[in-house]
């Protein structure tokens, strides 16, 4: 009987681990701090203006409980920063897909009317780690990546 119980507990443990798998060790980020850091230390082709959270919510449909911060280019450039801390990894995967769709739609539009911007969108940083999602369209994706990875360590 004890062995049966042990077996069931073991199975439960395996299932629990499977359900939680793929995380970044529960790492959380201060979304505003990371967004500010990117704005201040990555070169952009336009002045960056703080994005209203309501606007980000409208465009990205994040799962409930997601904290968002971001900046958008002033003008017609496609530069942007979006940093999200989701409630969990699965929510982050959902948001990542939404951000990818948004990025693809921007690329399709740029392809038709602003081919130069399409190349910049193609080279954008889009990263999900655990419950964190970051999009950064800038003049220096390598610099943006270095900053983001510093937060995700």
């Amino acid at each position, binding site marked *: 009987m004890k*062995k049966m119980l042990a*077996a069931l507990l073991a*199975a439960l443990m395996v299932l629990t681990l499977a359900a939680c798998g793929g995380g970044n060790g529960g790492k959380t980020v201060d979304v505003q701090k990371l967004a500010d850091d990117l704005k201040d230390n990555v070169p952009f082709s336009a002045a960056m203006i703080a994005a209203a959270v309501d606007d980000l919510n409208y*465009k990205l449909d994040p799962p409930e409980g997601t904290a968002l911060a971001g900046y958008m280019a002033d003008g*017609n450039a496609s530069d942007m920063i979006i940093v999200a801390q989701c409630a969990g990894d699965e929510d982050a995967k959902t948001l990542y897909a939404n951000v990818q769709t948004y990025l693809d739609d921007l690329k*399709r539009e740029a392809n038709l*009317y602003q081919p130069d911007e399409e190349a910049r969108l193609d080279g954008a940083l889009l990263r999900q780690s655990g419950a964190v999602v970051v999009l950064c369209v800038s003049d220096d994706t390598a610099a943006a990546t270095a900053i983001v990875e510093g937060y995700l360590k």
Partner: protein
Amino acid sequence: MSRYRGRRSGTSPLMLLIALVVAVAAVVLIIINLGKNKAPADDADTPPTDNVTEPDGTGDADGADDPAVTPDDPAPTYQKIELKGDEQQYDAVYRVGDTGYEMYSYVDSTAKKYADNVNAVADALAGKANVYMLPIPLSSGVSLPDALYGKAVFDDQKAAEEKIIGYMNSSVKSVPLYDALLAHRTEYIYFRTDHHWTATGAYYAYEQFCKAKGITPTPISSYTVDEYDGFLGTFYRDSNQNAAMGANPDKVIAYHPLSTEATLDYGDGENANLTRGKIIYDESTAPASLKYGAFITGDNAYSIINNPDVTDGSSCIVVKESFGNAFVPFLTDHYQTIYVLDYRYWKGSISRFAQDKGVQDVLFVNNLSAIRSTALVGYLHDVV
């Protein structure tokens, strides 16, 4: 050694049991996840398939009950378009011979958001201005060879139009265009090498707008016409400069407004320095890829057309992306002032601007590809 073997021997059924439980649980989880993944495809993001326009050109069988078709419209019949030439799919373009088609997928969640934006403007202007909404189908929904209808990369645009119109509230005057364009599908209403419609296609939309507004359209034969040869647009570029397209470029046909006194000025906004442009700009010497710029001098955040030949104080706003460019010239003879706002670049509030200017009409002239784009509907939301 024996101890090791003994332990293995003693726990083997237990391990088997664990494996069995895990396996069963895994199967259950997989089934649950499959259900979750399948759900979006089953929801309203996919247009209903029972409304697919018959590829034989006879139209949908239930057209008479369709709110997009006015009761006095006879059952439409359509010309067939045969599949001719080799086929090739590029990123977002499907080519048949020398003709490109934009692949299209209807996105219900984005259509709802688009409608929310239009509804919000209509609500804000209730009792003050009429709000019209003209959803423009793409060539892939109208002039696609019949044999390709139903192909996975081409969602039904008639069904999409019905869904979008269905999301408008009662204060929006929706102007369905699909049937009107389909009735002319064998004419030169879309470019072959570019994703836009031609001015002739836009004229048929203008006719539908006039019908909705209760005014008489100017006969197309009344206009002075310019033609600019050698247009090779976005489909040509996206098909890696396909040789068949290159050998048979498009022709931009432009219809001049009857008024020869009407002027167009454009800029970033009404308070910016405005530049004098032309309602029909001579693109005869423009590079091959830029000839669609003939209409209202291309995409500008803000344009204003003043027609001194109309003196009744009438005015309207056209909220558009580039498809609207070919449509706007036809409005010139009906309004004293036309404000053209390209919501992708213009900054401000359409509702406030309409009230400040005291316009009678606001027209949303937007193509179906824009209405499925989270990016473009996001831009529109920014200026509602």
